[in-house]
């Protein structure tokens, strides 16, 4: 332990950690998209899930899937570019193992919901794709709001 390290008191370390937490919270919050962007992105992802399930043998639903996918990519690109113009570069890959695991689990859930909707629709459950779309839209909304940097560091406002 060096001299400076010995000088760090419990209180000093505690206030340094609080300072770090606040700065990280501010930084992460600044990457959060506007409510309209979050709603559009979530709605498009929901439509993608639902239309992909209905698309089997139906060209109109296939067309809606393609359009919603393209629009979703456009919205996410708009978000990236506008952040960059504001002087903030968003990480495209998650931070470390924890972040990677979080994104992998999120993608797995989205995929399972989408494939599950597709399969259940094929077996005659016509309402399932709508529920699947709503579930995936909610996941995207929560993810963009609480985890805008794709890191597993949830921001809780007002703490």
């Amino acid at each position: 332990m060096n001299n400076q390290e010995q000088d760090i008191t419990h209180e000093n370390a505690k206030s340094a950690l609080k300072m770090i937490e606040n700065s990280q919270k501010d930084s992460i919050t600044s990457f959060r998209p506007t409510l309209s962007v979050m709603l559009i992105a979530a709605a498009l992802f929901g439509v993608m899930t639902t239309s992909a399930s209905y698309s089997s043998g139906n060209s109109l639903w296939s067309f809606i899937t393609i359009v919603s996918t393209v629009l979703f990519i456009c919205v996410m690109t708009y978000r990236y570019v506008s952040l960059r113009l504001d002087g903030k570069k968003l990480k495209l890959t998650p931070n470390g193992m924890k972040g990677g695991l979080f994104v992998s689990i999120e993608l797995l859930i989205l995929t399972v919901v989408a494939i599950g909707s597709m399969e259940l629709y094929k077996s005659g459950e016509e309402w399932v794709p709508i529920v699947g779309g709503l579930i995936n839209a909610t996941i995207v909304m929560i993810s963009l709001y609480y985890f805008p940097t794709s890191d597993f560091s949830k921001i809780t406002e007002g703490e």
Partner: protein
Amino acid sequence: MSNSSFNSIIHAPNRLQICALLAPAEALEFIVIKNHLEVSDSVLSKHIKVLEDAGIVKVEKKIRNGRNHTWVSLSTEGKKAFEEHVNKLKEIVGLK
């Protein structure tokens, strides 16, 4: 092996905040950090220079629309050093 070590360069309040702001981002512009810290250009430049000299941050200057834009990001070593410093603080507080 312990993955925590105290870093006196990072521990200075403004530098600690710079590292904390940069950690969740790929890079931030000088002006964004300045607005958050509410310090003058010269004070921030001085802190960033210290961090840059220690290999903790990388500074990239770019010209866009005829204007200079300075991007600051944590280097790989900087990310590790910051993480270890946070772990050390948690150890002191008794969170680890």
